[in-house]
């Protein structure tokens, strides 16, 4: 269970990296498309058949957000069983900041300053996920070490 906790925490950290990469890919692609003569208005924004290099970044960003929420939920459930020291606390924080992150993304179109918080909060998700993963790693190696020393004593 400790390993599951660790893997999930690392997956969440990886998910944040995917989020950053996909949205940057999409926006730079959009910029190039506009440079090349494309015009973006609301009708084009709502057009699901819009095609340019990087456009795939948008659906990846949106779908991966749900995946991250799901991973954070599973991490919290695993934490109940995993006996990682402080594991429940860290998993709870992660789920909380992931939910906040989704809400910030949801409301930032109405209040763009929230978009800045969305960017900063992403780093918080990453930091917490790495912290949780490190804790679990330390616990795993500590228990392995004690198991080894027990064997040596025998």
């Amino acid at each position: 269970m400790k390993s599951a906790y660790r893997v999930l925490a690392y997956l969440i950290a990886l998910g944040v990296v995917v989020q950053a990469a996909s949205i940057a890919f999409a926006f730079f692609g959009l910029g190039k498309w506009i440079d090349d003569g494309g015009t973006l208005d609301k009708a084009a924004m709502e057009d699901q058949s819009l095609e340019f290099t990087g456009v795939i970044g948008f659906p990846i960003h949106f779908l991966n957000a749900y995946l991250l929420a799901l991973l954070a939920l599973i991490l919290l459930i695993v934490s109940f069983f995993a006996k990682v020291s402080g594991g429940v606390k860290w998993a709870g924080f992660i789920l909380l900041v992931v939910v906040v992150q989704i809400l910030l993304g949801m409301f930032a179109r109405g209040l763009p300053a929230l978009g800045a918080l969305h960017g900063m909060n992403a780093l918080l998700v990453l930091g917490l996920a790495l912290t949780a993963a490190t804790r679990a790693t330390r616990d795993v190696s500590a228990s392995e070490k004690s198991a080894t020393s027990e064997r040596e004593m025998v």
Partner: protein
Amino acid sequence: MSSRLRLVLACLATTALLAPLAWLWAMSLMPDEYSVMDMGYADHGGGPATDDVAGHAGMHSAMQAGETSIVEMTANPNLPADVQMTLRAEQQEFELASGHEVDGYTLNGRSPGPVIRAEEGELVEVRLVNESVPGGVTLHWHGVDVPNAMDGVAGVTQDSVREGESFTYRFVADQVGTYWYHSHQLSHEQVQGGLFGGLVITPRRGEPADVDLPALVHLYDGHRTINGHEGDVPVEAMPGETVRVRVVNTDNGPMPVWVSGSSYRVVAVDGTDVNEPTPVNAQSVLVTAGGRADLEIVMPVNGSSVRVEMGGSAALVLGGKGPAVAAVEQPSLFVDPLSYGSPASLDFDPDEPMREFEYVIGRRPGFVNGRPGLWWTINGNMFPDVPMFTVSEGDVVRMRIENNSGDVHPMHLHGHHALVLSRDGVAATGSPWWVDSLNVEDGESYEVTFVADNPGVWMDHCHNLPHAAEGLVAHVMYAGYSTPYLIGGKGENKPE
């Protein structure tokens, strides 16, 4: 803590976390087939409860004694057709006039489909044949207040037309103006893919414009087109001639339109003529998704051309051999239909409504048919827990549409035209502003009114069609009427 106690606590915590989610998920699942009459809850809008309608909501979909089936709501079958056409729907790869290849849908081998033209009062008869669209098709006459059985909504007013089948639409073209038709089966996919066309109803009397041009604007794979042409689209017009450009926005979001090289007048909105339209200079006009605006331009006598800019990425270039005019940047000011033109008398009293409804759009996380996401809400509830606005024939209905959802919604009421009374509490002062597709921006609220004069079951939904597919759909239900059609089921009806 003993390890057994710890395990029990962990299991309890897991249950506490998952049980509400599982419950919400299970509650959101839709049956394989259902009647729109069973969807959501009856909202009588402060008017008398229409017993037969109230009996429907959430109860059963069977027809009750004394009810009229909407199947009977057709044009007079004894009237001969004046305009007859067969439209053959196909799913295929096709080439736009610009040469761009599109994997989508065609009518009679092309997209957009042919423009149907009728004179006021003529009976239009269109036979729709599904040649090769596996998902089934229908045709909805967007903006025309047709008899209910002709409205073309799969699972509500008919079954979708399966491959090899056909369906004949008949209606009297008694509303002069610019309209369009499109599939209302899997509409979010089929309309985007090209299953639509134009419909123009011209007055029996009156001076037509010298040049009368429907301009169906559509994005195919992100390429903006006018009647299937990309970029600058030339249109011949002589100096001094009057040109009427009938802009139809067939996309899912609003589009600004403006004119370079001339002033213009907005002579009609959503098919209804504007009363005493004044010349417009350096202003854009916003045409919402599904909406129409007719612009009238008098060609400059010096022979120079005029550009009608569609969102900045395609334009009609009107003119002949005179000097070409340069595109101007989009004017940031917009023509406001709330105050444009002059007031005119109405043939009903909007100040004494029999029913008053709220249509408040919001957004929150949850499940729609088992899918998690951030979904739209109507009056605080998510699909399918949406209001069914019940009316009786002859009611004057008032509706307040408010949008707090973080996104714009082009709201489309089928079968009726609504008059805009106010926006954000500011009363309308211009020409009577009749709409069938109303652009409701985030944070805005509109008061509209309509007369319930076209009995049946009518969708009232967002015309950003993916939003409709995500549950931003309600309907107006007339007392004493009933539909036998089902969403889902063996008809495989998926209206959105």
